[in-house]
């Protein structure tokens, strides 16, 4: 395997593991942990394997084409910086997995935890390894998503849900800004590939879009890295299980923002815009974070604010824009990841073993867990920047950079003082952490008796603290080359001079360190009484809570604003909505006529006027208007009138050379009427007039307005129809259809050939719709609960039954059974006739009017007639219709016919046609389209019968249920 493929493997491993872990049994804690650990260690190995090529200064690349025309590829790229981050992600990931195996309780669904954790690991790796900006944003948003799942892992607690939601909202919104920024960069550079973007620094900095780009990219980075004023989500993310905090807030998640700023540092940094945007944000974050950390009562809260502060420090360094500060930023990123991960794990152990994280309750734990205490103290000392530990080195570099002159502004000149102040704060909160937890009198009211944790739970901390010491004591033999590789990836092959030594002589940086140490201890001693009083939160800014502002904003935007808009623009009532739809459609249709002038007359010669046609339409129009008039109080009459209107349109089709349409319309008219007749029984009785005398003015106004709308729509459609009909028809696809209908499709009925051959795919879609509607109707009716007043038997039936009961020689039901004997017999005998007619329609469909649709409806009418003649029970005793089978069979045939053409190497639904001489029948067309038409036929039969029978069955079900009710 090439290095590029290894890289892809390293990226895919965590995702594969995540998918696998998701399918493990809920309590497979060990299996999931073992697998996650193995993946992290294997990933580490892969990354280490690639050290050789990265150290030579040539990034490992892999490009797989994805959307090459848009310049978007799946592109992986591993240079020194990415290598360092990838190592941290896998390395600390492996330690976190080991830790989590002991931390997570056996009652939790641990495989899910590891599934999320691995997915998050993969997303984070994606950010680091992507060689394409769009891809970075994609993985960036994935980290937001999976961190949401991780923070909200204990979703039964409100704090976890709120924290997760807040983190997702803030970082997700930032991600959107970043996406826009990245798109702008792509527009400036003409490519999203990182290699090209990194070479186009001058182009981007001189572009007029530079400021928007910087602002948008920084919004993404600042939200992710919890920079002021977006820092507030981070402390709330502490509701996550501690292994998650240890991972998210040391090596990953928040470091994604830092990574992005470092990645784009060569392109974006070095200008005044960059300096004045990044440095103040970093500085404020550094100071506010450190200041707030001092006053936290929650152990993890203290660490969270200290994380914010350290992120501010790194951001500040990146903002300074000098190569040396970039080196310092990378160095501190690594150091912070190492000591902060170990501190979070230590805090987790304390929480795990004592049952609390409250600094007011914890004290004197040294005597119970001396080993853990020692480790935590070393890590905290690293956080405070004590010599011989890694934190000291990067902090010295930071101090040295603060003293350096960058822009000569007031902000730049005052940096050393702020830096020292931040140093003092960090010493203070580190001291507070140590003395508060491990020293002092023995704890009194702890939920659990504290003791040392299992050895393997402590092992990650031991390992990380060892690295702290190694880096702190022999930096040039440990982190030196890695740092140099990473720095070269950012600032180019010529590194500025820096020395990773502990002792640089008496420099300003050392003086500041000493002041910070002494000042920090003094401040801690001075604040001791105040801190012991147990007040929560930092003084002065206690009331100013980012979370409150955030939640207030959320309420305003997502609740109040939405409600106001809904009240102003929306309605739950259907009538106004439909009115708006119709009026908007009307206006949209009228406006072009208004703008372009209205000319209805076209040039096409009119067809000869026929008075009979006019008479026909006088009847049709009368039916339609009368139906509109009667539909409220005389439903049955309206139904008959509707049938009249349908009949008129059927005759019109026949008149105007559309025999297929006329036939289908006529048949559909029959089933529609039967359907609505079946429905009438379940509608409420004739409504009493709501307004006995005369309706109130508001109702009248509404009615007249509706009448006006309806009139305008009618006139408008009439004008448009006339305008269209009198204009010559341009060349259309119809020519092709007519010319090729026989020679290509083997049929003379062009409409049918279009349906089953030329546009067969459309038809397939339509019969699928038909099936879906049929199934929906069926499903809705299975759970049908009729309105209460419709449940009892209809009046006519009651009268009949009363009559039957009154007569001594009759039993209830006899009247219905005796009804219409001769027509019933005729109808029963009609079944074979109609069925034969259906077959006839079907067979001739390809050449003459007919076809699958018409034949299908005809056969369903044959079934319905049986139901009407003999009643549901009789029919189902004698005939098994099985409409669902018909539908399934039809779809199967239609689909198989279409797929059959693949067999011969043609596209889906290619048809084959030929004529065969059949015995008796004679010359008869056999096209594969006929099979397709057979499918349509079966689906239409099945769906139509299913709908009608399902509705007809309702009356039967009612009597059955009321019968059982009587039986009880």
């Amino acid at each position, binding site marked *: 395997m090439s290095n590029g493929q290894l890289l892809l493997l390293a990226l895919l491993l965590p995702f594969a593991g995540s998918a696998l872990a998701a399918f493990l049994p809920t309590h497979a804690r060990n299996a999931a942990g073992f697998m996650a650990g193995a993946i992290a260690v294997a990933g580490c190995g892969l990354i280490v394997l690639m050290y050789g090529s990265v150290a030579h200064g040539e990034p490992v690349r892999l490009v797989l084409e994805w959307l090459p025309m848009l310049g978007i590829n799946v592109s992986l790229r591993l240079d020194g910086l990415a290598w360092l981050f990838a190592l941290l992600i896998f390395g600390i990931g492996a330690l976190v997995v080991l830790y989590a195996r002991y931390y997570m309780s056996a009652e939790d669904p641990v495989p899910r935890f590891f599934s999320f954790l691995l997915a998050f690991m993969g997303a984070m790796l994606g950010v680091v390894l992507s060689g394409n900006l769009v891809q970075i944003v994609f993985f960036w948003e994935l980290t937001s998503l999976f961190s949401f799942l991780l923070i909200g892992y204990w979703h039964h607690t409100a704090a976890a849900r709120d924290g997760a939601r807040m983190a997702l909202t803030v970082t997700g919104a930032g991600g959107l800004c970043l996406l826009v920024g990245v798109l702008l960069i792509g527009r400036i550079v003409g490519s999203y590939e990182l290699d090209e973007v990194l070479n186009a620094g001058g182009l981007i900095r001189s572009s007029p879009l530079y400021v928007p780009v910087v602002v948008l990219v920084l919004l993404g980075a600042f939200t992710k890295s919890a920079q002021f004023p977006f820092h507030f989500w981070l402390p709330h993310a502490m509701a996550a299980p501690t292994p998650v905090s240890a991972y998210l807030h040391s090596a990953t998640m928040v470091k994604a923002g830092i990574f992005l700023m470092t990645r784009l540092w060569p392109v974006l940094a070095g200008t005044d815009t960059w300096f004045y945007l990044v440095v103040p944000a970093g500085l404020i974050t550094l100071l506010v974070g450190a200041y707030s950390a001092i006053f936290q009562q929650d152990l993890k809260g203290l660490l969270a604010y200290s994380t914010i502060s350290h992120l501010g420090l790194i951001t500040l360094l990146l903002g300074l824009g000098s190569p040396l500060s970039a080196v310092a930023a990378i160095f501190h990123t690594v150091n912070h990841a190492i000591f902060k991960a170990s501190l979070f794990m230590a805090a987790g152990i304390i929480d795990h073993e004592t049952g609390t994280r409250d600094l007011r309750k914890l004290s004197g734990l040294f005597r119970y867990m001396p080993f853990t205490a020692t480790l935590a103290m070393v890590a905290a000392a690293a956080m405070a920047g004590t010599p011989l530990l890694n934190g000291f080195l990067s902090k010295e570099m930071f101090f040295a950079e603060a003293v350096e002159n960058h822009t000569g502004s007031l902000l730049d000149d005052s940096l050393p003082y702020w830096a020292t102040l931040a140093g003092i704060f960090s010493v203070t909160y580190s001291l507070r952490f140590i003395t508060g937890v491990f020293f002092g009198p023995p704890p009194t009211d702890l939920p659990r008796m504290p003791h040392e944790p299992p050895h393997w739970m402590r092992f990650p901390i031991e390992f990380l603290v060892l690295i702290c010491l190694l880096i702190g004591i022999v930096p040039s033999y440990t982190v030196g080359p890695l740092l140099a590789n990473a720095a070269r990836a950012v600032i180019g092959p010529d590194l500025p001079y820096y020395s990773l030594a502990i002792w640089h002589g008496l420099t300003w940086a050392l003086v500041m360190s000493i002041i910070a140490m002494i000042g920090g201890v003094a401040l801690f001693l001075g604040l001791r009484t105040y801190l012991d009083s147990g007040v929560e939160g930092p003084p002065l800014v206690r009331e100013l809570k980012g979370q409150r502002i955030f939640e207030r904003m959320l309420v305003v935007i997502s609740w109040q604003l939405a409600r106001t808009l809904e009240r102003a623009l929306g309605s739950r009532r259907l009538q106004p909505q439909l009115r708006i739809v119709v009026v908007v459609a009307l206006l949209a249709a009228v406006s072009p006529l208004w703008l372009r002038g209205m000319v209805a007359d076209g040039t096409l010669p009119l067809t*000869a006027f026929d008075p009979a046609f006019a008479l026909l339409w006088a009847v049709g129009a009368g039916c339609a208007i009368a139906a509109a008039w009667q539909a409220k109080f005389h439903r049955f009459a309206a139904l008959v009138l509707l049938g009249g209107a349908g009949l008129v349109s059927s005759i019109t089709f026949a008149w105007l050379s559309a025999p297929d349409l006329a036939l289908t319309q006529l048949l559909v008219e029959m089933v529609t009427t039967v359907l609505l007749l079946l429905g009438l029984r379940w509608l409420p009785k004739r409504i009493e007039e709501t307004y006995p005398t005369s309706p109130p003015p508001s109702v009248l106004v509404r009615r007249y307005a509706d009448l006006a709308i309806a009139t305008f729509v009618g*006139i408008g459609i009439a004008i448009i129809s006339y305008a269209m009909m009198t204009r010559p028809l341009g060349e259309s696809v119809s020519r092709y259809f007519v010319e090729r209908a026989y020679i290509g499709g083997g049929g003379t009925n062009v409409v049918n050939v279009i349906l089953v051959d030329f546009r067969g795919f*459309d038809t397939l879609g339509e019969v699928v719709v038909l099936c879906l509607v049929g199934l929906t109707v069926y499903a809705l009716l299975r759970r049908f609960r009729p309105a209460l007043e419709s449940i009892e038997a209809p009046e006519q039936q009651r009268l009949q039954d009363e009559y039957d009961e009154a007569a001594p020689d009759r039993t209830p039901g006899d009247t219905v059974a005796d009804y219409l004997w001769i027509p019933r017999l005729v109808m029963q005998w009609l079944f074979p006739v109609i069925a034969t007619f259906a077959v006839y329609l079907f067979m001739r469909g390809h050449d003459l009017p007919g076809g699958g649709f018409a034949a299908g409806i005809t056969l369903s009418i044959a079934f319905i007639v049986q139901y009407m003649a003999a009643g549901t029970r009789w029919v189902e005793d004698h005939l098994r219709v099985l409409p669902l089978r018909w539908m399934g069979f039809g779809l199967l045939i239609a689909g198989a016919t279409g797929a059959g053409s693949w067999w011969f190497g043609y596209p889906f639904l290619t048809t084959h046609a030929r004529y065969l001489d059949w015995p008796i029948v004679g010359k008869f067309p056999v096209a594969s389209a006929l099979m397709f038409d057979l499918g349509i036929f079966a689906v239409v039969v099945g769906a139509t019968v299913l709908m009608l029978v399902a509705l007809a069955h309702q009356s039967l079900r009612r009597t059955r249920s009321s019968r059982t009710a009587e039986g009880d």
Partner: protein
Amino acid sequence: MEIVLAIGIGVFAGSGVWLLLRPRTYQVIIGLSLISYAVNLFIFSMGRLKVGAPPILPGPGVGDPATMADPTPQALVLTAIVIGFAMTALFLVLLLAARGLTGTDHVNGRED
């Protein structure tokens, strides 16, 4: 003929829209049916009107589009008629179910 059909389509559509805006579900169903007639006829008329020239080839061979009505709108309308039936069925069942749930056949789901 054109003017007659155009007015006819207009009347169908106007009656349909009036019913569409009425409060009772049954009215809305009848209205939708009328609108679907109007729309089917409208689409059909886009092929222009021809009397006595159905789109059926006289015999084997290459057809001549000039001698017959436009088959494309007819093919479109044919499936639309069948789907229209299905939609009517669906709406009918929906209104019956809605009435069972809300206790009213008012389109707003409550009497007001």
